[in-house]
């Protein structure tokens, strides 16, 4: 792992982006914290905590598209950019994530 700008950001490489099937999500347990990384069909990546704020549903197993994820347990929808739920007062934690040279780079604050 590498430190950037001497800030408190922690940058974590998660391995090749191809490991995530197109249009789906995968779970990475980073230092004990389960994080869902999604790879949208248009190539965009998103990362959220892998626990739905409603009842802890595994969001990585949800259906995604159009910048949204649907929780597989009770169908609540979240905006992948902001984490805000589309139809309620919930919000899920999101994390910056990008691809560099075919590898997923996650940033934890």
């Amino acid at each position: 792992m590498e430190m950037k700008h001497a800030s408190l950001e922690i940058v974590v490489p998660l391995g090749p982006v191809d490991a995530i099937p197109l249009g789906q999500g995968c779970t990475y347990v980073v230092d004990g914290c389960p994080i869902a990384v999604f790879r949208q069909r248009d190539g965009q990546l998103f990362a959220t905590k892998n626990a739905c704020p409603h009842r802890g549903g595994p969001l990585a197993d949800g259906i995604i598209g159009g910048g949204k994820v649907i929780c597989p347990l009770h169908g609540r929808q979240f905006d992948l950019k902001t984490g805000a739920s589309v139809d309620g007062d919930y919000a899920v934690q999101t994390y910056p994530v990008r691809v560099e040279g075919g590898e997923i780079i996650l940033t934890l604050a």
Partner: protein
Amino acid sequence: MDGRTRLVVIGNGMAGTKVVQEILSRDRERFHVVMFGSEPYGNYDRTLLSDVLTGSKDAKQIFLNSLDWYRDHNITLHAGMPATAIDRDNKIVRGGGIEESYDTLIIATGSRALVPPVKALEKIGVFVFRTLDDCQTIEAYARGCRRAAVMGGGLLGLEAARGLLSLGLQVTVVEMMPWLMAQQLDAEGGALLQRSMEQMGVQTLLGKTVTRALGGKRLTGLEFQDGTTLDTDMVVMSCGIRPNAELAERFGLAVDRGIVVNDRMQTSDPDIYAVGECAQHRGKLYGLVAPLYDQARVLAEHLTGVLSNGGYQGSRSITKLKVMGIQLVSMGDTIPSDPQDEVVSYVEPSRGVYKKMIIRNNRLAGATLLGETDTAGVLTQMFLLNAELPDRRADLLFGTSTGAPILSVFDLPDHAQICHCHGVTKGQIKEAIEFGKCRSVSQIGASTRAGTSCGGCKKLLEQFLEVYAGEVALDPAEHWYVPSLPMTRPELVAAIKAKGIKSVSALFRELNGGREEPSHKAALASLLKTIWAGEYEDERDARFINDRVHANIQKDGTFSVVPRIYGGVTSPAELRRIADVAERYQVPAIKLTGGQRIALAGVRKEQLPHVWKDLGMASGHAYTKAVRSCKTCVGSLFCRFGLGDSIALGIKIEKRFHGIETPHKMKLAAVGCPRNCAESTVKDLGAVAIEGGWQVYVGGGAGTRVRAADLLCTVKTHEEVLTYMGRFIQYYREHGKYMERAYGLVERVGIDELRELLVKDVEGIGARLDAEIERAVEARTDPWAEADAPVYPAQFGGPVLVELKR
């Protein structure tokens, strides 16, 4: 005496009983309760009297609290005993020779029908409509009559008219005002309502004042102010109500039009309270249930010492007409009163639809929905909460084009009242769902009474179920296949075929400008698969997780595995293998399912392929929207009643159709005789053996809704059962909406039509349906084969562990 405070209530109608209930639910011990009721019954739902009159409900069905209830709660009820005196100095209520002393007195005497000054009215054949007894006398007298008139074209008058109509009479409604329901409707709405009533067979005479009753002892007609007359054998008066405030007035309480009360429902005597239609609060009288329940709650809070929100603030009233075949909801203002008011309206005369909103400062000052009341629940909430309205006014009248709720039920506060008839709040409904495990509108009704009177809140209750019962329910706009694509199923199918679209991503690209909508992926995948069968290009991201890993996701993210056991018949070897696998993988729970199979629950995703391989059995579809298992009884093989071999048939059915994808899950059963031990008649598809053959039942269900199946046909052989079941399944595949259970289709299309199409084959589609289902059977593969060859590497991948090196 036991030292408890003595609470006496005069009147055991809707308001009086409600206060007592509310008090008991807060503090069971504080009061010794005594009630006087002039009616000889317990307490019933007065609003349902019109149903009793039409015969759609039996008197027994409208009781809210039987006499036993009073006994069980240690309430002394003097039923059939009007209170006749209040001795305020000695704090005693008297009636029928009984004396009851009180510390606190509540008057809830309601009101009575207003009788207008009509000459010679004291005749046989003149009725008011207020109590259960009225209902019964009207009904009895109507038997000897041909024509009836109703005086008064308000809410009650119209309900009475409908009731009389269903007793087989010619009915005329006479109204003084130039249109019907003048309190709740403007002229235009009134005119449309009049047309609907007339189409139903009720005549109307508007702008007519009755001045004299004609006939001798018995009524034979009515005479109007303009000298004209109407022949009629009976008349029901429904010209408004008068509070029963005489008793209070006679014993010195302040009475204006009703008994005057303050925000605590206290009369001019601090130990005496009044609630309900007899009370006048801030100059207003209320004649509907919802406000009375508000009052009852406030009073109960006050008397038990926990008054919140500073007391009763008055209510905004909402009226719903309960006339079969006419939908009408009205709230607040009917005409604009301020030049700044925004008026939004829509009229469709041919269907009798009229919708109108009066908007003041971006809030709802009033609304009328006639003929189509889909958005009534939402409007009601916006009206009651005085909420800011969304920009798209049209959504408020027609619903959103995406099918998304206009007002998320999430956003309502827990104290928001949802059922106005019974005063049930969102909090109570949530509890009923989450703790009471209610899973259907009727269960919520049984547990909270919500939705059991006028039914106006049922749509909202459905939304609560979807949200809080944890059912992943999509809500496609009524006629579109999916809400984001404005196309009906046939239109969509045509476009898909014309453009040769074979995958979900291609569909978004071609038909939706490249915009993906995740909530529609699964529905579109199902459609594409039905259209193209083997040619369908399967993209796994369009599948629900269950269908990606072929097991059912559980609340903790693990999965349950259900090996296929055809017809529910297994062997020692199979049982042993299942037991071994369960032990080997330390499966936390083994459960016999409701469908006679064995579930291994709590399996982690990455264990799935190993579990399946070791089981060496086919996948039991306890997950996909597909044909699932076929339950069986022991039938003629062992049972002494068995008329047919239900085990053999059940196995054949399951072997043939299992796993075939359908718009929603399909549950099946086969039983050996009409005793129906495996419950064929509450399955989507069922077979019942009878002497000499089999009956095929379709469209039953015992899930969120309970529905008894309809008989599709009666045949002789197992093979014929398979043929008609196959036809039905294929027809459902082609015509069911996504997530519509088979019973939904049966109700929508109608069993008669289905018999014509599938059994009589009037349109000659039978052979094609038979061929299509055969094709689907042949194209089927066992999904568990993917254990050996995952479709993509991460298919059964568990979480990837990442260590932070510091």
